[in-house]
């Protein structure tokens, strides 16, 4: 019974296995990225970026049809352009990061919708917006895994300046540790991961697998590295359970995965050991010192 519920779909169907592996790979990359975004107070920047990839994906769609490769490549170019432009504006003008991202992603989104409308409405377009994880082929699986690997490698290399820049940016600049270049590299990684997630979950859902596990992790762990590990675990769990929900109840897979991640987030917020709501509300006797 439990086997049939939790395991069997993956044993029986190759597309379910590929989807599950894709979710695990995405969680490995997106978990720590989400934690860094959250700690840098850029949670909504991820959201803005996920909309920014839309015109690129639309161009890919118009040129090559429903090709994950073409749409992914277009999304990558559009996302990188917005990230770099917004980063540049933040560093060189009075606009703060949230404002400059808002400006460029809105332009990008409008452009994307106009591009899409030139071909009229199309059922396939639902796949662009809400993902096609049950149609992940071995090639996109390799892409997703490669991006996760690259993300973890680069994060390991720039972990120290990233953490310090989030915590005390002027100190990092004062000791000559740089600042701008780590930030740009980080934004590039955000776009890469969104494009990876977008192949599987769609543009609108992609950022969910990045931010929700990270937010949950804030209530589960205290240090940056343990938060990242917790976010990976929550992401993988959401992928697994979300796919099962989608399979058993015949629901779209992307939103199902994100909803499970959302349930994880709310549960962690209520029951989490680090500043969880219950912890705060339950009266506990104070300590001696």
């Amino acid at each position, binding site marked *: 019974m439990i086997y049939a519920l939790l395991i069997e779909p993956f044993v029986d169907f190759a597309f379910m296995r590929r989807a599950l592996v894709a979710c695990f790979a995405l969680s490995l990359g997106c978990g720590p990225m989400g934690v860094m975004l959250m700690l840098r107070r850029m949670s909504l920047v991820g959201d803005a970026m996920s909309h920014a990839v839309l015109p690129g994906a639309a161009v890919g769609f118009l040129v090559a049809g429903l090709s994950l490769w073409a749409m992914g490549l277009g999304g990558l170019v559009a996302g990188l352009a917005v990230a770099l432009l917004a980063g540049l504006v933040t560093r060189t003008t009075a606009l703060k990061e949230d404002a400059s991202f808002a400006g460029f992603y809105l332009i990008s989104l409008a452009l994307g919708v106009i591009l899409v409308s030139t071909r009229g409405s199309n059922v396939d377009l639902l796949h662009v917006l809400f993902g096609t994880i049950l149609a992940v082929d071995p090639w996109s699986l390799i892409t997703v895994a490669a991006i996760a690997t690259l993300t973890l490698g680069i994060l390991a290399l720039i972990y120290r300046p990233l953490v*310090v820049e989030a915590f005390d940016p*002027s100190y990092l*600049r004062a000791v*000559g540790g740089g600042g701008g270049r780590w930030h740009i590299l980080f934004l590039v990684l955000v776009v890469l991961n969104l494009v990876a997630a977008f192949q599987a979950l769609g543009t609108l859902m992609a950022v969910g697998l990045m931010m929700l596990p990270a937010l949950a992790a804030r209530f589960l762990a*205290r*240090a940056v590295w343990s938060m990242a590990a917790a976010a990976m675990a929550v992401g993988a769990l959401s992928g697994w359970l979300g796919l099962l929900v989608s399979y058993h109840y015949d629901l779209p897979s992307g939103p199902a995965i994100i909803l499970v991640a959302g349930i994880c987030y709310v549960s962690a917020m209520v029951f989490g050991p680090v500043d969880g709501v219950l912890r705060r509300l339950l009266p506990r006797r104070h300590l001696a010192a």
Partner: protein
Amino acid sequence: MSAVIETVDLTIAYDRHPAVHHVNGRFEAGSLTAVVGPNGGGKSTLVKTIVGLMAPASGQILRHGLAAAEIAYLPQQADLDRSFPISVFDTVLLGRWRRLGLFRGASAQDRAAVVGALATVGLTGFETRLIGTLSTGQFQRALFARLLVQDARVIVLDEPFNAVDSNTTSDLVALVTRWHQEGRTVIAVLHDIEQVRRHFPETLVLARELIAWGPTAAVLTPEALRRARGMAEAWSREAGVCSAAVAAAPLRRQA
């Protein structure tokens, strides 16, 4: 004595409006200097430029045999995210950045330096605490421990005793005095004139223009303080190009 930092006709501007205007002078090696002046008088702007975070609009900063990044700098607290999940130990260990860089692990010597610095500022036992759990005064002590660990020849402090209790302030002032005795050059932006009189041999009075710079007793006269207070804080929108800048150097926009 030899100068370690010199300002040569230094002007620093925000959007072309000078915050520091034609300042000439020198910080001697081993000197302990207070920078005082009215709000908006350019004190923080001056020290940010000394440590290389801002570029002069004209004139220059000469750092004799010293890279900007070799100067230990304590900014005003507002720049920091105190809710960040980082331990007191790791925060202080950041003082070793120039030795550790991006990749090197902390050696036993680095760790011992951190433990020693925490003991000096009275924070032994706080190593694994997250910085978010510290009080304002304890947090400032931790930042001073980071400065200790940096072991720099020149130390620049921007309003280091703001919102800090008197007990902590006197401990930290003692630390500043110790740095002075060790022959380090210390520059501190302060606003407590009595504190400056008691503990700081040199004073620089800045109100956009340099009002006075020299031995504290000679500089902190009622006349100098009155002139500093009289500075017009507002920019004049109609201000023309400064006549001294007409001859001028390459134009550069401020970031």
